[in-house]
């Protein structure tokens, strides 16, 4: 569980990136944090694994204040995947990269080997096992970074823009994978601009603007509110855009799921035929 109570954070440049943020995330939740560039999303989630400590207020991970714990200790329970994979990759091969943290945590060679194979398989990277991560495409490097964090089997996973550079198939896999983690009681927090991805996964959505949380609730409610979204520099998911335009014809507005959209439109079109 992550408990954030009224935190403020200022960078050394005196820019106040967080201005009184409180949020509780329970075990097993999937939360998408959205909002415009510079809203403080990345700064906020960097508090979850102690990379940043609040200037005021408190952050507790499983009841322990992050100020009383080291990043190394927190790394065992909170896995963090950065926005730009090049900020975390450094090994000569994909396999050493993925096994690096496990080796540091002192796991035995057999377990490390098993975990590496499982992660590479899961993220469609097995063919690149002996390749340098720097020879891979942007989307592939992003998956190597994810694999290296997942290999440690953290209880909570923080993903900063996980869908960047990922194609359709990889996004679907990521979605299934997140749902699977959730089913195992793990917590997933994703900072993302990808409205279509969020519309498909339908997680709890937290909207940030200028260092504060401005909305918190179910995806289909928040992602269908044009005024709120525009203030956060987000566009409606495509299905919601269609229904906003169709509301003139008396159809409901709060639809983001394509199957639901299909069912509602089929009913309306059938009714019209009769």
């Amino acid at each position, binding site marked *: 569980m992550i408990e954030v109570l009224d935190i403020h954070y200022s960078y050394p440049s005196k820019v106040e990136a967080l201005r009184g943020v409180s949020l509780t995330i329970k075990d097993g939740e999937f939360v998408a944090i959205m909002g415009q*560039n510079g809203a403080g999303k990345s700064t906020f989630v960097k508090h979850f694994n102690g990379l940043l400590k609040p200037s005021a207020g408190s952050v507790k991970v499983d009841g322990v204040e992050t100020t009383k714990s080291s990043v190394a200790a927190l790394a065992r329970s909170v896995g963090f995947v950065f926005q730009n994979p*090049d900020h975390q990759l450094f090994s000569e091969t994909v396999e050493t990269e993925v096994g690096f943290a496990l080796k540091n945590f002192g796991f035995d060679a057999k377990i490390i080997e098993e975990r590496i194979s499982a992660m590479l398989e899961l993220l469609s990277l097995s063919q690149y096992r002996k390749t340098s991560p720097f020879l*891979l495409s942007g989307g592939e490097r992003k998956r190597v970074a994810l694999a290296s964090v997942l290999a440690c089997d953290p209880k909570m996973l923080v993903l900063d823009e996980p869908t*960047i550079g990922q194609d359709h*198939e990889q996004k679907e896999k990521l979605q299934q994978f997140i749902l699977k983690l959730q089913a195992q009681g793990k917590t997933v927090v994703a900072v993302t601009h990808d409205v279509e991805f969020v519309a498909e996964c339908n997680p709890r959505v937290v909207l940030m603007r200028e260092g504060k949380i401005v909305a918190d609730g179910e995806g289909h409610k928040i992602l269908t509110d044009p005024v709120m979204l525009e203030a956060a520099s*987000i566009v409606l998911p495509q299905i919601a*855009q269609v229904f906003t*335009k169709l509301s003139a014809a008396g159809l409901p507005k709060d639809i983001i799921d394509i199957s639901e959209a299909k069912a509602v*439109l089929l009913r309306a079109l059938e009714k019209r035929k009769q």
Partner: protein
Amino acid sequence: MALIETRNLTYTYPGISKPSIEDVSIQIEKGEFVLITGPSGCGKTTLCRCFNGLVPHFYQGEIKGDITVAGINTLDHHTYELAKHVGLVFQNPENQLFALSIEKDVAFGLENVGVSREEMRQKVDWALHQTGIYDIRDRSPHEISGGQQQRVAIASVLAMEPEIIVLDEPTSFLDPLSAEKIFEVIYKLNQEQGITVVLVEHRLDLTAKYTNHLIVMDQGKVCLEGNPRDILSKEETSRIGVGIPKATQLYQMLTKEGHNLGNRTPLCSEELADQILEALVR
């Protein structure tokens, strides 16, 4: 002659056995807005690197076939000779920013081609305004967010006003509304000034509506090419793993159930909503 033309272009990076692009033959005419898509690792970025000569001059490796860009054979001419004609916005903005201030980064290309001071001032300011970074022009490009860095990279290319702009997932770090605004700026340049645009994107929900020429790549090859409305209607396109826009998918689902929503395959929500409204009042 087409503005960009490749014939049986095959390229292999040094130290890798399999070609990253294989037998690619495409023609891009002046003024087109071309969208290149396909699964991650399919060769999209590599193909873009051929358009300004980074492949093979910077990356080395082995290249076969022919390629001409703005009448120049890129295999015989250096990247700096192509820079006047082709501007490339990289996937990762950090790879192309280096100056001490944003403004200097945006002015760098113009300084090198010997533009007068007044003209440079005017072009740089215009590019900074178009991308919404005029107010932060004095800051270092290395202390701003990934999204802002992408704006700087785009501004640097816009300032040069090249004939061809090649953009490799140029807005991936930007929030959706900012991304949309940038795409609108690029589209406007394409429509009003006839600048040829080559855009690499996975997110067709955001970009399919701008293109009149869609290229789908898979495993280094061009598999489908043509009008986006035709290509996005093909089953093969989704089989390759292209993310069909939701509006297009919904149209397909409803027509499959026997509803007539007109013959035009919609590429965006506005088009689909209009077609449904028409069916509902008909």
